[in-house]
Every structure is written in C-alpha cells, then in structure tokens.
C-alpha cells in the first residue's frame, strides 16, 4: 500500500450493528468497546447499537453478561469464605476475589474466623481493583461509599443499560432518589440496591424498569421526570387518608417527608 485509502464511516450513530459488520474503513477512526480493527476496517463483534462520538466508534450491546473492568463499583454477594479472603459473585462470568487486606485495616491473626467481617450471603458494595488477562477479578471495600449493605431490596437490570440509569453525572439516579425518597446504589454489574419505604421502592423499581426498556430513546430524562411526578402525586394522595398510620411511625415519616418540601419548591417555581 503506497497511499492509504480515504477513511469512510459506513454506519450512523444509533444504528444497529451485527457482528462482522464493517463500521468504517481507513485509519481515521478508533475502535472502542464491541469493535475491532481488521486490516483497514473497523468491524463489530457484538450485536448492538453503534455509537459514534468524534473519532471513536463503539457498540452498546443489546444484552450480555457484565464484563468486569478495573475501577467499576459493583454490588456483590459473598458466596464463599476462604483462608485469606472471600469469593464474591458479581453477576459476571467470573467470580471475584477479595483479599483480607482489601476488607479491613485491622490486624488479623493467622487462622482467624473471617466471617466476623463478611459471611456467606452478605451483600457488599465494592470496587474492582484489578482484572488480569486470565479474568481473575480483585475487589476492595476500602474506599468512599464502599461497604457491606443491610436490608433494602436488590434488583437486577441489563448491565449495558446501567449508564442510562445513572445518567449524566448521576442526574437520573439523583432524580429518582429525590422523588421516591429512596437510598439507591447502582452497581456497574447491573445489580441495584434500594432502601426506603415500600411505596417509594416500588416506584423507583418501576422507574428503573422503564429506563431499562426505553434506554434507546431520546428525551429519556424528561419522560422519567414526568412519570415520577405523575406517580408521586398518586402515592402521596393514596397515603394521605392513612395519615393516622404515619403519625404512629413518626421516625419513619420524618425521613420520608424530607424530599417532599423540595418537590413543593419545584412546583412553586413553575
């Protein structure tokens, strides 16, 4: 090849691509997730929606298991306790491993019972510190917001829709948190932990399911906002006649009513 052929983009943003499909020719584009370069062409190796941002071409898969990445915050379940750590299920094809040194700074004697920290069946929010080429995944719970989680409810969503659920700089999840009064942790592996009142949790779950279903459409944030607002009214109306019940659970009611004043301010502005 004496002279490089001119680069050409063969796919538009948000178009569906199938494995083996040529997405672009020439060296002016960069293959990202779900694509690879073969000779002079960029090809897809996953079935999904193409995304072209500047020179970078990637594919957002329609479905699939969670591919572990270094730095991701995930929710995991302890499935085994070993001599020097724990084995964690992170909803991925490979089980993750957490060493004792990544769980605590305490001094631990040889042969000590590690269930003191985490036992089988516990759920944790953890960060992936390393993924080897052999797909050995290491986790840590040392870090901001990383911990064991208690109570609440765990749901599973498509891992590739997680970025939409979080939104830009967490805008989507913050909105759900505020309108439903729930505490929400979204793991990159598609497990989401919610904790609040049953009504709030159910509304949040419905909203998340809606995002998962309609993630490919534009204007999603506005849609979810109006959905939450519409159902929020119903929830508060439904709970009004049962005011007597709320008074008896004053501590609970106090924590629930927190997001409501914010709502009032918002609607005043309108």
């Amino acid at each position, binding site marked *: 090849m004496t002279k490089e052929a001119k680069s050409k983009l063969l796919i538009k943003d948000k178009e569906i691509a199938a494995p083996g499909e040529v997405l672009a020719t020439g060296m002016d584009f960069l293959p990202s997730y779900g694509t690879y370069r073969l000779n002079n062409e960029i090809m897809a190796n996953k079935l999904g929606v193409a995304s072209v941002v500047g020179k970078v071409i990637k594919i957002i898969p329609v479905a699939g298991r969670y591919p572990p990445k270094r730095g991701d915050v995930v929710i995991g*379940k302890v499935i085994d306790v070993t001599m020097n750590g724990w084995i964690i299920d992170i909803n991925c094809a490979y089980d993750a491993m957490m060493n004792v040194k990544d769980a605590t700074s305490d001094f631990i004697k040889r042969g000590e019972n590690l269930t003191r920290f985490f036992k089988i069946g516990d*759920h944790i929010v953890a960060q992936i510190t390393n993924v080897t080429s052999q797909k050995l995944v290491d986790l840590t719970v040392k870090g901001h917001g990383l911990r064991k*989680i*208690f*109570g*609440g*409810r*765990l*749901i*599973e969503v498509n891992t590739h829709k997680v970025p939409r659920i979080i939104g830009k700089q967490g805008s989507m999840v913050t909105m759900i948190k505020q309108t439903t009064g729930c505490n929400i942790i979204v793991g990159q592996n598609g*497990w989401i*932990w919610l904790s609040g*009142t*049953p*009504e709030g949790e*159910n509304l949040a779950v*419905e909203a998340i399911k809606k995002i998962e279903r309609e993630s490919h459409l534009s204007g999603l944030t506005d849609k979810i906002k109006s959905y939450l607002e519409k159902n929020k009214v119903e929830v508060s109306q439904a709970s009004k006649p049962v005011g007597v019940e709320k008074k008896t659970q004053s501590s609970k009611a106090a924590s629930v009513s927190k997001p409501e004043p914010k709502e009032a301010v918002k609607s005043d502005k309108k």
Partner: protein
Amino acid sequence: MRGTEIKPNILRYMDENQRFDGRKLDQLRPIEIEYDVIKTAEGSARVKMGGTEVIAGIKLEIGSPFPDTPDNGALMVGVELLPLASPEFEKGPPSIDSIEMSRVVDRGIRESEAIDTKKLCITKGEKVWMVMVDICPINDDGNMLDVSGLAAIAALKVTKFPEFDGESIDYKKPRKKQLPISKVPIPITVYKVADKLFVDPVAEEQKEYDGRLTVTSTEKGMLCAMQKGGDEPLSADDVDDMVKIAVKKADEIRKKL
C-alpha cells in the same frame, strides 16, 4: 428480584399492604384467557396471570366405566411440570408438587360436579366417555395451582364431543355437541406469612410462605374442595378469613371466563 433477604423484605412490604410488584395483598395479577389454542384437542385454553402461563388441553376417549359406577363417565387430570417452565422443575417421574397440583385440580372439578358424569354414559357398564385434562405450564412465576385450575375449567367450558358412530371416534370430523358443564369451580390459594394473608404470589413470595389453603368454590360461594399446605398450622379464624378471601377472588375471576 434477588432480595438481600427475601423474607424480612416480604414482611416489611406487607406491613404497608404492598408487594414487590406494587400490588395490594389481596390483588390478583391481570388475567388473560385464550380459548381453543390447540386444534387437535377437543378443548383447550391458555391462561396467563402476570408472568405465569399455563396451557390446558382436553381429550375425550371411549372407555369402560369403573365397576362401582357403571353409568358414570371418568375424569382424569394430569399436571406435568416441564423443565421449560422453571429452573426448579426436573424431568423424570412426576414430582410431589405436580401430583398435589393435579389432585387438587381434579378434586375441585370432581367434587363440584361441574361435569355431569351421568351424561357421559353411552352404554351402561360398557362404554362411557373419559375426559382427560392435561395441564402443561409454559412459564412459572408463582401461583401455578390456581392458574392450572383456571386453565382446566376454561378448557372444559369450550370442549366439544368428537364424532362417535357407535364403534370408533372420528377426531377429524367437525365437533358439535358441547360437553355438559354446569358449574365453574375456581381454586384460589390463600397464603399466610406471619399474620398476613395474601393471594397470587410471585415466584419469590411462593418460596417463603408459612402456610397455605387452597379453596375451590363455585357460583354463590359453594365450597367444594380444600387443600392445606405449608409447615405452619392455621387457626380456625385463619381458615374463616381465607375462605372469605378465596370466595371473593373466585367470583372476581369467574367474571373473566
């Protein structure tokens, strides 16, 4: 849903009259019924209740009656829990659950006298119609028993006799005469967890109940069959409440048939 701990979560939700899918404790999932889904069967129905889906098929055959009831037709109900419906069902000989399910559905139809078995007699002591109900789950998302029972009676309601010339049955000829069905027995299982009673569980809830009572009732709240399950005992008051709920819910479903 994978709960961090499912049972405390169920109780926490039920304290506020809520369920995992946003229903109330005594609220059923939406029901869809489709009739005559299998052409080769004398009657069939597909019933969907939320994520649970069941197909029931009816075959009619000529056989000899039981010696103690020479002028009555026979009813046979079979439920086969296929592995395609749930990861918890195994292939092989029928499991305890499938035997219980088929027996409870059978008992409901039999004891309600929904089918007039006298009318199934062709020659006394020699030839009678045998009604075979086969129930086949397509997807299990809880409450298989109630959906199976509903599918069975829905299929029976549209069952027609095949052409019979005195010697052999011609299944290919168009069917005309309707199977005599006089009542609509509907089984409703009421579940108990702690002190809460609820109906129509989803798969997670079904794993965590303490006790259950299946009540089959016909129109006007006639009770015709019951079955108790689960590890915990039920008090007399519980049974009273459960029967009331079951009759109310059965009436609700009957309108959709």
